[in-house]
């Protein structure tokens, strides 16, 4: 499948030469999260840096693993999440996407 740039290079320029610019538009996808206590916090705070499939694609994980992931987001990635919200988010993930352990 030819890229847009390979196709564009055949076009004659008029005025400004645009054929050297290669662009795409990224689509958004709709992510459905399970209803549960803390869902609103998750939707707002976990969506700042990445889409929410990062949550939904995981296999069921133990509570300790979800806690470690949330901690990593805050301590390593610098997510702007305070301690209280971190607790809410971790509890939501453990309850809705956890193994129950």
């Amino acid at each position, binding site marked *: *499948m*030819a*890229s*847009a*740039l*390979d196709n564009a290079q055949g076009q004659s320029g008029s005025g400004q*030469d645009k054929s*050297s*610019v*290669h*662009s*795409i*538009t*990224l*689509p*958004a*996808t*709709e992510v459905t999260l399970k209803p549960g206590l803390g869902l609103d916090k998750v*939707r*707002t705070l976990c*969506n*700042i*840096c*990445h*889409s929410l*499939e*990062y949550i939904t*694609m*995981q*296999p*069921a*994980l133990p509570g300790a*693993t979800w806690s470690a*992931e949330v901690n990593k987001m805050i301590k*390593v*990635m*610098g*997510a*702007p999440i305070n301690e209280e919200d971190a607790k809410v988010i971790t509890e939501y993930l453990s309850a809705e996407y956890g193994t129950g352990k």
Partner: protein
Amino acid sequence: MGDPKIKFTRRDFLMTAGIVAGMTTLGEIPGELLAAVDRKNLVRFPEKTDMILLTSRPPQLETPMQYFRELITPNDALFVRWHISQVPISVDLKEWRLKVGGHTDKELLISMDDLKTKYEKVTMTAVIQCSGNSRSYFEPPVAGGEWQNGAMGNVTWTGVRLKDILAEAGIKAGAVDVSFNGLDTPPLPSVPDLVKSLPVDKALDADILIAYEMNGQSLLMLNGFPARLIVPGWFATYWVKALSDITVLSEPFEGFWVKTAYRIPDNPCACVAPGEKVEKSIPINRMNTRSFIIDPEEGASIKANKSVDLKGIAFSGGYGIRDVLVSVDNGKIWSETKLGKNLGKYSWIQWTYSWLPKKKGKYTLMVRATDNNGESQPFEPRWNPAGYMRNIVEKVTVNVL
């Protein structure tokens, strides 16, 4: 540092940063911007065919297994994996420059024209595989990109040798590492930028390329337009996309994505007991030997007393493939398969085996490859906390009717 020449409009920023309150329902997203999603979780992203969606921001797309029937993976089906959300979506080739500098005699600003005319052109077929390919099969499960087996592909790359570029810049005595940065940038300043490094001796390996073509066409935007690093035989974490800066360093590289992320246990199996922590680690590096049965698929029905060709692929960490053995009786008896066209030590090779099942029933097919260094595949899965380097002997169960 992002290239100021990337056209990144406010709408692009909002779409990729996702900092739009309440953008959670279909009605709020302009129709033309919604990826086509069908029930099998397939999406069609720009310049790509229908692929398995892992994440949209940043994009991570997996290749459906049927494409691995081809010796060469089509460009529009090659997997996509970005780490940080601000991925390049518009590049002006007239303005783009690859900057080479640091602990060097000269600083270079290389244009695409320069790349295509000033250096020896090299073409090489090499497997590209994500470090976490097959992570979804780990038991106990590991958090991360939950790939099945589709985060890999076999592509013919065209570009120039990194070695030639570094020779022109002139590496000064005392160089230790070389770092590679791309046009992608983090969503927040606190998120580590995706910068990788290689020890300088490795960086001078004649087989490492700066590629500007994949299968004879310009790189797709999602696969690293306009140029990317190719480190054949090593996992794709090093194959930095949308290259913008190459920096020779006189001190060891301390960046997050090499010092903290992408580490494996420092032992021959790169593994620990399930659930255990890693005592001593090293950066992930060379791929291990893998093979797959592509046909028949899991659960397929096969006619008794009729020859059927079992088919698949095999590859290693740059040592070619010596042989591929197949078993149709869950590993009791192993037979040699016929190997296909050899495109070199970094490419994968196709294998076939003609099977005539006589008795009806359920059969477990297995395949096991060995590379030219004698490295093969384990029968038991190997575990590590990051879910890297899975290379177990693969099984497919079929029904003979």
